[in-house]
């Protein structure tokens, strides 16, 4: 499987990230994305739901890993922790979809084979949620995520202080996670 070695590498990266190494953190999240994508597709396929929604679940899971990273103990195995978060988000997503059954058209093998590649299609959920954020948070998240600006660049582009950009980014991401969660609760 090589799963053990892979998970040890994740743990090393996460410890570096916790010590303030943003590059290690980004590396970790990039490595996790295809793994989460595969498990999301597998879960949706098993539930008889459309695998087209997998990327929403991947993004929601990455947000949860980010916002809940304080719940990982640095000397505990990281694999069970990540799988528990992914499973929680998967179940949540299926429940929110009201167990609506979509007949999957895709072939399962083909689905898994393409898990490494991020689909090019626009991921609808996160953009819709982003639109509902307060303007300050929305602009900062857009500048950094979509336009690839650094904190400093975003600060000068938006005429904000460095600290204000950091705060808006963090609050914006937390608000995005909350929007995912409440998506179907009200309606």
């Amino acid at each position, binding site marked *: 499987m090589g799963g053990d070695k892979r998970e040890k590498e994740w743990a090393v990266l996460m410890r570096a990230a916790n010590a*303030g190494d943003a590059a290690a953190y*980004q590396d970790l999240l990039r490595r996790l994305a295809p793994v989460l994508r595969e498990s999301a597709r597998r879960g949706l396929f098993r539930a008889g739901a459309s695998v087209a929604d997998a990327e929403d679940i991947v993004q929601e899971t990455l947000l949860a890993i980010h916002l809940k990273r304080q719940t990982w103990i640095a000397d505990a195995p990281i694999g069970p922790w990540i799988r528990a978060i992914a499973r929680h988000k998967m179940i949540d997503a299926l429940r929110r979809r009201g167990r609506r059954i979509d007949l999957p058209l895709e072939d399962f093998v083909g689905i898994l084979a393409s898990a490494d590649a991020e689909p090019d299609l626009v991921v609808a959920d996160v953009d819709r949620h982003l639109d509902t954020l307060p303007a300050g948070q929305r602009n900062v998240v857009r500048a950094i995520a979509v336009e690839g600006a650094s904190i400093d660049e975003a600060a000068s582009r938006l005429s904000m202080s460095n600290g204000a950009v950091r705060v808006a980014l963090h609050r914006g991401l937390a608000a995005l996670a909350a929007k995912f969660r409440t998506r179907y609760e009200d309606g």
Partner: protein
Amino acid sequence: MRTADLIRALAADNAPRRLGPGKALALALGPGVVVAFALFLKVLGFRPHLLAMAGDPRLAFKICVSLALAALAGRLVARIARPGADARKTILWLALPAVLLAASVVAEAMSVPIADWGRKLWGANAMVCLKSIPFLAAAPLIAVLAALRNGAPDRPAAAGAAAGLLAGALGAALYAMHCPDDSPFFVAVWYTLAISLVTAAGAVAGSRLLRW
């Protein structure tokens, strides 16, 4: 927004990491217990001659067993807040205060004449006990739930129940210093019932507040 974009934003967000579940719990419990203790002093107060009775085994037992339950429930809360945590052993430890309580009931049954059992069980203050323990548990329950919102429990309702158990046990330990009913019969029935009420309230609150 593509996933790669989101990852860039996540990596750029270097807001200080929040406290882990254990530390968050310890930090929240401080003010929660202080408020509960202040309410205890204001509304209930110590029973007369509490210190003179400190050697009484029944009084010492009901305080100690409540504190033991609080400590074990606290361990459970800190653990259950982590995704994928195996809490089974920690839950098994909760049997310890239950076994101690059962043993104390047996000891009481052997030392008290049957004719007195009813009086000991009903005590003087059953309804006050049922109201006071949840009343004293309210502030700790809010504090523990607030700490748990930092965590990521797999099962929010179960985590809320554990929070209720911890808060109920703390409320019971405080109330034990007011309550004139020391018989294990009374403790086994009314304290248990009151703590169960707080546990149920915690489960309901948890299923709403602890989703993530």
